[in-house]
């Protein structure tokens, strides 16, 4: 194996045949204040009896994600391999693209957390375009990588806050991608685990198909 091949092939995922372990990197992407960190916090609160470590967060003083949040956990065995899932979030703010791009390195699966608020429509579109560009910089395609859309903050409708309809979100974000999507409330926990299970299943299926 040449040096160049090693570098090219070393992208994703990492499979350790000696320890029989697969490490899977799932990244939550989306506009700032969309609920990416809240997704991870809910997962942690729900499964903290099974997750041995704390969430690692690199935040600004104003409690916004500066670099990433990181939550690793063991999923148990699939086909004799220990599957270790590593959930990451990126900083959503536009100005942090350099660090956002770093987190995306070696990603195996993605959850795009869209903000359902009407006022955030442009921010969703901008963030999805940014994801497309950042993946392309690693020679990855948004159309090939396992991806799930989550339309977050659906609970805000009860408070009379104007929300984009699911049809409108689908048209804006999913008309070309045609990937699974879920209405959710990260704060209340609605569909947070469903979203996570879906992306893990899709990512594992992708890995299995590559192993054949």
């Amino acid at each position: 194996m040449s040096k160049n091949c090693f570098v090219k092939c070393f992208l994703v995922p990492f499979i350790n045949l000696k320890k029989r372990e697969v490490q899977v990197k799932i990244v939550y992407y989306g506009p700032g204040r969309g609920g990416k960190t809240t997704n991870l916090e809910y997962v942690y609160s729900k499964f903290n009896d099974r997750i041995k470590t704390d969430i690692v967060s690199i935040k600004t003083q104003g409690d916004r994600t500066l670099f990433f949040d990181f939550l690793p956990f063991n999923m148990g065995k699939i086909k004799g391999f220990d599957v270790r899932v590593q959930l990451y979030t990126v900083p959503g703010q536009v100005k942090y693209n350099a660090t956002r791009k770093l987190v995306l390195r070696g990603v195996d699966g993605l959850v795009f957390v869209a903000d359902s608020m009407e006022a955030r429509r442009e921010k969703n579109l901008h963030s999805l375009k940014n994801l497309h560009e950042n993946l392309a910089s690693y020679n990855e395609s948004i159309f090939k990588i396992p991806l799930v859309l989550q339309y977050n903050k659906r609970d805000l409708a009860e408070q009379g806050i104007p929300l984009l309809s699911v049809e409108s979100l689908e048209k804006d974000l999913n008309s070309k991608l045609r990937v699974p999507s879920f209405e959710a409330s990260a704060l209340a926990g609605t569909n947070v685990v469903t979203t996570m299970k879906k992306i893990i299943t899709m990512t594992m299926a992708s890995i299995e198909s590559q192993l054949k």
Partner: protein
Amino acid sequence: MGGRKLGYILGKEELTGIEHALGQNLIELGVHCVVLIDMAGNIITELDNGEMKPDVYSLAALAAGNFGAVSAMAKIVGEDEFSLLFHKGEKECIHFSKIMTDLLLITIFDRDLSLGFLRLKVAEAAEKIEKILES
């Protein structure tokens, strides 16, 4: 999902060779813990002296991010990379060394060990690992 590249699978023999190189060059030298990761934050292998058990998964994620951030800073000031990355604590120190283009060797040691000697041994281990992965 077709068309995505398969990630690298490391075989038992390669891993055993890498662990041997790290054990012989670094753990026997008195290093507390050594972790080989890729730039995505995945752990390739980890060895320790039996006393120190850090949370290596969080360490790997943070180290990959840290190294990426420092490399990006290097480019801003017109450098390809900063070759020495070293954090010195009151008791423990961390040394980072890039291997080939996509691997990072993290070494945790105390102040009894001289940095110069450690760097020499890290370089030797890195050379052995490169040979294993290129063969």
